[in-house]
């Protein structure tokens, strides 16, 4: 499993919006310049997040994007799952799956996926934005 640019940039977009959240919508050009990402690409990602129900787009002059919910209610795991399509290690079993493949899928990859889901359980966007820089100290 590799996290693609879509997942990475989407998460950075959400973090940026959560950090600069106010009543007013934030234009993507601002986010792009702050984060050093291409605006065109961010538009695609923002569209995906809007469809997923994480963002609300506001049209017109002074328009832009807003988080649809509080950042405490946005789960990182769900966002990644939406952006990446599927963030599981276990692949969908093929027809001619050997016994060994089946064993590894059930006893290793599926458990790994459970473990990852367990780790990310309850981790919200708010937790990411709240992180303090001195957690790395010492």
């Amino acid at each position: 499993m590799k996290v693609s640019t879509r997942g990475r940039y989407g998460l950075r977009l959400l973090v940026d919006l959560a950090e600069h959240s106010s009543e007013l919508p934030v234009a993507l050009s601002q986010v792009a310049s702050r984060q050093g990402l291409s605006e065109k690409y961010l538009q695609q990602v923002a569209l995906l997040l809007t469809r997923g129900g994480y963002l609300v787009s506001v049209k017109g002059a002074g328009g832009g994007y807003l988080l649809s919910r509080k950042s405490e209610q946005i789960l990182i795991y769900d966002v990644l799952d939406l952006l990446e399509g599927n963030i599981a290690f276990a692949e969908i079993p093929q027809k001619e799956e050997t016994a060994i493949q089946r064993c590894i899928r059930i006893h290793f990859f599926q458990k790994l996926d459970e473990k990852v889901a367990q780790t990310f359980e309850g981790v919200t966007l708010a937790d990411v934005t709240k992180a303090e820089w001195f957690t790395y100290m010492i």
Partner: protein
Amino acid sequence: MAPAAGVRVWASSVLFMNRVSALYRFETDCTMVSPRFLLPKAYPMVSGGPYFLCWALFFVYLHDFAMIWRVHRSERMTNLDVCAKCWYLYGMKLSTKGRYSLETMVYLSTCRGNCSIRSISEATGISSGYLEQLMIPLKRFNLVESERGVQGGYRIARKDITCGEVLSASEGIFTPTPCEDCIQNDACKTHQIWSMLQDTVSEFAHQILVEDLASHLVASEAGGGI
């Protein structure tokens, strides 16, 4: 003459309890600055007003050194030949190479003696040419042993091989994103998510033994549940 065993045990337990209570007394006299740092209340040099600022500055410097050390370490770790033994600590990637190596290792641990490339190929469905390639890193990291001759073939090197070792030997460093060398690493808040993912995956993979997977396989074959 050495005291009797019972006396020695008693003495060591008394010493230990003293140690524990001393530690407890020390902790109650401290303020917790961070989970890792306790500040004694009694010493003004340490906890008094302006001195505290000095300590804060000191920690900022410490932080800088920690950063320098981290960068230094990551640069050093890129030299894989030097650090082949620490390699597995840094996790693994997952592609067909890793998946196939894992299958091979699980099959090898179900075998009693040596396994020829051909029999592995029949059981796993991997072509023998590709298997030869997969065996090179596994052999280099001492996960399999090979033997020449009529009875030759490959066999598992030890009992306690973990999936993490196999995957990192065949795949190298597992990084979910190419953020490792990014300059903004410490400013970027999403970076912690990726390192969390990386840590979870490599920690889990290093807990699961190939041997256990093999016993599951044997059990399922004995039960006819293929």
